[in-house]
Every structure is written in structure tokens, then in C-alpha cells.
């Protein structure tokens, strides 16, 4: 399939999605929002993973972003859209600073410290109630765009497209070479002129910024932040599962994973209202056992074989 056709189809898909509000109801739209929000989180997690660093801290930067957005609006009266960018900035900067220490670590140790970071953010946020509203959190007078369905959807769609583009940049720029080398063999990487630490800090900050951005958007869309809600472990575990299910280290893996698992859990609960989450668990286990390359990996293999 040549480039022209491919880009044409992608364009068509994009148009279809952009036009979704005109032929789909509010429920599919909000479902799409949820899916795309988790999609971008999954992408950001995967982007860092391409350097071999496994992060359990998604919820941490997601929550920080959420608080940054809501608080900057409540106290600073800043325009909601701007607060979302501010959220990205905040999370990115924090990652940059923390990264200077944390990125000394590797593997299991890095993973667990990111996990701890998320937890520490939560505890700190809950212990400065005057600013954050403490355990009860803070609410916005109204959700972004006054809850206007179309606009909200387009905002999320824009973020999703942004995320996909960012991920593709990671895949095509020299970052790709740097991160892949680091993941494969750090010794070779640094002996081949790659400033390992620099590139890890870059990747960590950018992915954290993305997570902060999504957190900010989420908080603006649902109009509130709370420690239990904004730092919920779901925002770490579900994206993780989606990326794995769809296939890691490629842009379309997390995307497809998010769509499939997102729809699955939503449809499942219609047929198994009580305890459909068990099926969700089974899907993850099965996916890892039978699709180590993820859905996309599997399919691209078959495509390869055919052509």
C-alpha cells in the first residue's frame, strides 16, 4: 500500500472521527472521550517505554496536571484552555526536576520509585487543604465549554491526534535511534555518542507533560479534582493494559489497545452488569499469553507474511 493511499485513508478516518458528533449520539461521544483520554495516556507510557524505562507513575503526573488546571483557574482565573497547557507545563517541569534524580535508576527500581512518586504527590496534595481542598478536592463552577458535547469531544480528539503525532515524532526522529539504543544496550548507546541521561530526561519530561495535559483536560471536562479521583491507580493500570494489549513500542499499538479494551469493557458491562471486570482481567492475561506482540503486532505479522 503506497504512501499516498495510506495518508488518504488516514485523512478520511480523521474526517470521519471529526464528524462523529454529527452522526453519533452523546453516549458514543463521551465513550470516545474516555477511550481517547486513556489512549493518550497509554501512548505516553509507551513512548517512555521505548527507552526501556517502565513507569508506574502515570497517575501521578495525570493528577498533578489535573490540580494545576483546576487550581490555576480557580485562583488565577485563567482561561480553561490555557490551564490545560499550564497543566502540561507543570507536570513536564516536575518530571524534568525529578528526572535528574530518578533517572539514575533502572528497571524495577525506576518503576517502583515512579510508583512511590505518584503516591507522594497524592499525600502532599491532600495535606495542603487550603490550596487543594484536601480530601474533598476542588470543583469548578462549570465544566469546560459549559459541558458542550461537541466542543469537548473535539478538544479530546485534538489531544488524541496530538498524542499520536508526538508518538510518531518519537518513532521517526533521532529520538527513536537514541531511545532504542538505550533500551537495547545502554553501554553501546553511550559509547556511540548518545548522551543517555539527556535523552532519558527529555523522554521522561515530554511523556510526563503529555500525562499532565491529559490530566488537565480530564479535570476540566469533569469539572473537579480530588485525591482519590485524580490520582486513582486506574490511570496507571488501564493505559498500561491497553498498550500491552494493542502492542508496545509502536504508535498504533496503544491506540488500538485503548479502542478495543475501552469498547470491550463498555459493551461487556451491558451483558455482564455484575463483575464484568473479571473478564477484563482475563483479556489482559490472555492477550499477554497469546498475543505477546499485541493485536497490532499480530496483524502486521500476518500482513507481512501475505505481502
Amino acid at each position, binding site marked *: 500500500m503506497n504512501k499516498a493511499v495510506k495518508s488518504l485513508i488516514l485523512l478520511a478516518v480523521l474526517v470521519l472521527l471529526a464528524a462523529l458528533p454529527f452522526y453519533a449520539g452523546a453516549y458514543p461521544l463521551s465513550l470516545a472521550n474516555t477511550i481517547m483520554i486513556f489512549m493518550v495516556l497509554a501512548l505516553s507510557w509507551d513512548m517512555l*517505554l521505548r527507552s526501556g524505562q*517502565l513507569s508506574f507513575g502515570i497517575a501521578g503526573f495525570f493528577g498533578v496536571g489535573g490540580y494545576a488546571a483546576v487550581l490555576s483557574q480557580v485562583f488565577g482565573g485563567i482561561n480553561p484552555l490555557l490551564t490545560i497547557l499550564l497543566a502540561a507545563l507543570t507536570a513536564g517541569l516536575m518530571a524534568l526536576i525529578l528526572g535528574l*534524580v530518578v533517572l*539514575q*535508576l*533502572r*528497571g*524495577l*527500581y525506576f*518503576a*517502583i*520509585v515512579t*510508583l*512511590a512518586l505518584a*503516591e*507522594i504527590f497524592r*499525600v502532599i496534595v*491532600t*495535606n495542603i487543604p487550603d490550596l487543594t481542598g484536601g480530601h474533598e478536592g476542588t470543583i469548578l463552577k462549570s465544566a469546560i465549554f459549559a459541558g458542550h458535547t461537541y466542543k469537548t469531544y473535539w478538544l479530546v480528539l485534538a489531544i488524541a491526534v496530538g498524542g499520536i503525532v508526538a508518538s510518531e515524532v518519537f518513532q521517526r526522529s533521532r529520538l527513536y535511534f537514541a531511545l532504542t539504543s538505550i533500551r537495547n544496550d545502554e553501554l553501546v548507546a553511550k559509547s556511540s555518542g548518545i548522551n543517555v541521561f539527556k535523552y532519558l530526561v527529555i523522554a521522561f519530561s515530554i511523556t510526563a507533560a503529555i500525562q499532565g495535559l491529559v490530566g488537565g483536560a480530564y479535570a476540566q471536562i469533569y469539572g473537579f479534582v480530588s485525591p482519590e479521583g485524580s490520582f486513582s491507580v486506574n490511570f496507571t*493500570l488501564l493505559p*498500561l*493494559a491497553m498498550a*500491552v494489549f494493542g502492542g508496545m513500542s509502536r504508535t498504533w499499538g496503544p491506540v488500538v489497545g485503548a479502542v478495543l479494551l475501552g469498547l470491550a469493557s463498555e459493551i461487556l458491562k451491558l451483558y455482564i452488569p*455484575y*463483575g464484568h*471486570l*473479571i473478564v*477484563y*482481567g*482475563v483479556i*489482559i*492475561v490472555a492477550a*499477554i*499469553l497469546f498475543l*505477546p506482540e499485541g493485536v497490532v503486532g499480530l496483524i502486521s505479522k500476518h500482513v507481512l507474511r501475505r505481502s
Partner: protein
Amino acid sequence: MRGAEKKRSGDLMTVQWLNKRRLALAALYLGLAVILAWWRPYVLVEGVQRSCLYAMIALPMALILGVLGIINLAHGEFMMLGAYLAYWFNVRAGLDPLLAALPLLLVFFILGLATYVSTIKHVLAAEELIQLLLTFGLGLVISQMVNLIWTSQPRKVQLDYVSASAAVGGFSFGTFEFIYVGAAVLVLIGLLLFMKYTRTGQAATAVGQNPRGAALVGIDVDRTYLMVFSISVALVGAMGALFMTRHSIFPAVGGSFTLKSFCLVAMAGMGNLSGILWCSLILGLAENLVLSIRGYSGWADIIFFALIGLVIIIRSRQRQST
């Protein structure tokens, strides 16, 4: 193969600074103990009890990590399932949970076999995070299954002996939780002896240090993995019975113990069993100390994670210098 090298370097690491750390911990621990003994005796007593609860649950996880080189994120869920089965035995057959621990050993050994053969076996070669995700999925399945069967309603058996207490001078304290101390020490010694003197144990040690090497000298690596995993699951399942004598149980109760065990194992270092006990003691005592100061109990978690972070950063420095 990358896994193998990882593990070997991990062991070197622990060996290299084990003694240094041992001493440091011993000093810290003794210091705390002395101060506490006259200042707040109950912090000492209850801190030790709490520590050993952590330790007895974390030990099997450390064993799995040390030998198979994987972190079992379904660890706490196995514990939780054990607790529920003990509860069920108690309700159905009036079996005392402490006795239920014995049949549970068998039940969970078999469950361990099944789990290993059907899932773990197939991801041993895969990347670390694949293993983490698989076990995370397993955990989800277990907890949701329990939720379906017993609902999220917290349950707690009535046992008079769990609130047994003794008094020294003016200060009265619970005596029952000393069974956690017993259990932790028993499990630790048991495992150490097992690793040292049984064929499987020796094989496990060898495999843990270098699977390929072990295979070359004719050790059946797969079988060793199978045994070690099953034994660990059996242990943690039985621990569930001890756990639920004292705590309410509900489907999500295991999760936080997975995390705590995970952190303890990371602190103690790859496959370092006795390190678990030391780290637990520091953590448990520190936590109880904070809890004992009025108005600051909220910060107990920070202490926990700060300690984790600190120790891990130190460890990474250690590693870089070599």
C-alpha cells in the same frame, strides 16, 4: 538470557554490600529499640508485630523474585484468596483459621502449580514489564472472582483469642500478633534451610544466580521454577489464614500488601531473604513511631515511601560505583 545477567549482577550487588547494610540496619534497629523501650514500649512491641506481618507476606515474593526473577503482582491477591478460603472453612466447617493454614498450604501449592504451568511458565523469557502485567492481570482475575462470590462486603471472623493481652507493669499490650513474629521467623528460617539443604533448594539457588549455567550442569530449571513458585504461593496462601484472624477481609485487601511486599523486596535487594526481615523491622518501627505521635499519623505513608526512595537511590549509587 538478559534476565540471567540481570539476576547475576543483582546477586553480586547484594553480596557486595550485604555486610555494610547489615551493620547499618542492626545499629539503626538497636538504637530505635533502646530509645523506644523506655520512651514508648508499645511502639516497640506493636512495631515489631507489624513488621513481621509485612515480612511474612513479603518473604515468598522475595523467593520468587530471587529465583524466577519476576515480581508477582498477584501476590497480595493470593494472600487475600487464602484469607477468604480460611473464612469459608470457618463458616462452613467451623474450622479454626490457624488450623486452616495447613490444608491451605496444600490447596495453594496446587494452585501454584496450575498458575505456573498455565501462565508464568510462558512469560519467563519475556521482558520484565510483560511479567508484571501478566501477574497484574492474574491479580485482577482473582480479586474480581472473589468479589463475585463473596461481594465487597468486608468480613471478619469472631475469635476470642485474637484480643488476648498481657500486662507488664502499667502497660498492657496484645499478645496474639506475636504469632506473626513466629510465622515470619519460621518462614525465613524454613526457606533458608530449604535453600541450603534440600536438592530443590540448592538447585533453586543455582538457578537464581545463573539459569543457563544451572541448566548446563544438568539442573532441571523449569522444574525448579515450578517448585519454587508453587511453594511461594502455598506459603502466601497460608499466610492469608493468619492474616484474616486479625483483619477484616474484602476483595481489595490484598492490593496494598502487594505494594508493601514489592517495596520491601526492592529495598532488600534481589533474592535477599533475610534482608526482608531487616527492612520490615525498620519500616514497621518507623511507621508505628510516626503513628504514635498524635496528629502526624497521616504522614506514615510518606515515611514509608521516603524510606523506599532513599534506600533505592542509595542502592543505585552502590551499583554505579561497581
